[in-house]
């Protein structure tokens, strides 16, 4: 599988992936409480990008461009980034249950973001995404230390993650309850559950570069991640500088998690479930697995967002609710599988 697919095959696969991605974005823009014809979506994009001058209802054009399309683009970036984090963490830690949500990295990022937004920590110097990044790094460091103390095993890492999540969620609640106004508190609680409602184009200018940069860094380390299949000592004996790879990849995962959490809150299970589905479909080689997971995560999130907007007429569910409804049973399935294999 790692053999160089003929370059035509590779280009073809990349092209097909882009077609699927754009089709999903198109669906995301067209489907909603007011169904908008697919042609209108195309015309809107043409109007906005190239001044094509199609005569359209301003309301339709506004909904497509300002609300749905920006939202779909952010959802796609977020899904791709979380799925990439999942692949990287699962491979590096050799733990099939690892993802930013379960390891408490999302919770840490939330605390960091809330700390900046409400307490005004680092006033002026720290923006919310930077606060989220610091929170994510602190959380991962804490969980790593706990896991090492608890004996490194699969269970130890997950238990440490649970402890970390609880701690940081409690800290977040504490900050919100103590310092936020009632109005702020309601907004933040909704955001914490994972919510794309407030997303507009400026958010996309953070989400898209973060996801793309993450994808590039991960792809550059695809072979290194392959080499971790038999553990870090085996990777070292295959010529991988283990510590550097750890730092770069965990840092990248923390960066992506932080960017996404600061925009849409913490969304669980995407990072856990998508990589496993992708492994079943395309195998374990990271050169293929990473882009496949990114695509899968992007498409999954766009459709999860569509569902969250249309499932209950007149109401928008937090997208975290949808991903958890799909993800929790999948998590149980993975757990069960592991048991039978062990």
């Amino acid at each position, binding site marked *: 599988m*790692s*053999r160089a697919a003929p370059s035509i095959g590779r280009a073809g696969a990349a092209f097909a992936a882009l077609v699927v991605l754009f089709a999903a974005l198109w669906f995301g823009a067209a489907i909603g409480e007011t169904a908008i014809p697919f042609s209108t979506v195309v015309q809107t994009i043409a109007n906005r990008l190239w001044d094509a001058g199609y005569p359209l209802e301003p309301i339709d054009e506004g909904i497509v461009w300002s609300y749905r399309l920006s939202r779909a683009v952010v959802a796609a970036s977020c899904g791709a980034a979380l799925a990439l984090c999942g692949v990287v963490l699962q491979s590096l830690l050799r733990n*099939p249950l690892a993802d930013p949500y379960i390891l408490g990295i999302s919770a840490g990022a939330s605390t960091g973001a809330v700390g900046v937004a409400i307490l005004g920590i680092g006033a002026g110097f720290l923006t919310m995404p930077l606060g989220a990044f610091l929170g994510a790094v602190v959380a991962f460091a804490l969980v790593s230390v706990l896991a090492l103390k608890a004996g490194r095993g699969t269970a130890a890492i997950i238990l440490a993650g649970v402890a970390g999540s609880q701690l940081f969620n409690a800290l977040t609640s504490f900050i919100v309850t103590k310092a936020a106004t009632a109005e702020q508190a309601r907004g933040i609680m909704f955001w914490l559950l994972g919510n794309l409602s407030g997303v507009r184009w400026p958010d996309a200018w953070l989400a898209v570069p973060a996801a793309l940069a993450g994808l590039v860094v991960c792809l550059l380390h695809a072979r290194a991640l392959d080499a971790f299949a*038999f553990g870090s000592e085996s990777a070292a*004996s*295959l*010529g991988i500088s283990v510590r550097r790879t750890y730092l770069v990849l965990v840092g990248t995962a923390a960066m992506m998690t932080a960017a996404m959490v600061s925009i849409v809150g913490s969304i669980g299970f995407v990072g856990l479930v998508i990589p496993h589905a992708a492994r079943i479909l395309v195998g374990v080689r990271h050169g293929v697995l990473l882009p496949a997971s990114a695509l899968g995560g992007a498409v999954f999130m766009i459709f999860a967002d569509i569902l969250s907007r249309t499932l209950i007429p007149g109401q928008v569910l937090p997208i975290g609710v949808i991903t958890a409804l799909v993800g929790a049973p999948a998590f149980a399935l993975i757990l069960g599988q592991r048991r039978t294999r062990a």
Partner: protein
Amino acid sequence: MTLSAERVSWAAGGTEILKDVSLTVETGEFLGIIGPNGSGKTSLMSLLAGIRAPKSGSVLLDGAPIGLLGRRAVARRLALVEQQAETGERITARQAVELGRTPYLGALSPWSPEDDRIVDGALEDVDMAYLAGRSWHTLSGGERQRLHIARALAQQPEILLLDEPTNHLDIGHQIGLLDLVRQQELTVVAALHDLNHAALFCDRIAVLQEGRLAGLGEPREVLTEERIRTVFGFDVEIEQDDGGICNIRFLTRRTQKRAPRAQGRRTLSAMGA
């Protein structure tokens, strides 16, 4: 190409595991490392492979400290087969061997037909080509160990380091595997637990006792009844055949062992009476 340890020491969690060990691996030789459990064999192997740094002393590869050479450069010259390395990934036998090409592939350099050829060759060398497509988890311990060796061969090393490669294999596979390694015409350093295997396959043997080097030389010099008694704590009889190969016979104390059993039987009959 020489690999040598100069007065290396290593400690884990405050316990000294290796103390002042010095040895030089000669080009082309098969060097065995023997010693009881916990005598520091595995630690010495990881120090020699450069994946751990000694607490004091140094490991030199062609005169240069191994820690200062790049990891990739080291991995092209020296391959380590760990004890029972396992994976949770669903990889195939061939993919496990393909990992051996990692030190030659950059992030952007593609896999080449040359890499394919080397992997095919390594699979042939360990007689596993016919199982190349099988999933790792369906293979036996012996087959996995042979694949680890194929992976190491795919690194095209000059030196092969093996940490108890025959652990958990049945006797036929143990001999077969060591024979296979011997045929590769590489410099080999192998931690072994079977003294007769060490005597049969090694050109020289290093004996570790509580982290210290307790002997180094040709098998018939090193494997003496006295040394085995002091290092391993049991009595042996050593015969040498015409080729100078030692044969170690373990003396089980039959008479002493039988006595309590006979006594037990007597007690039982006494109870029955």
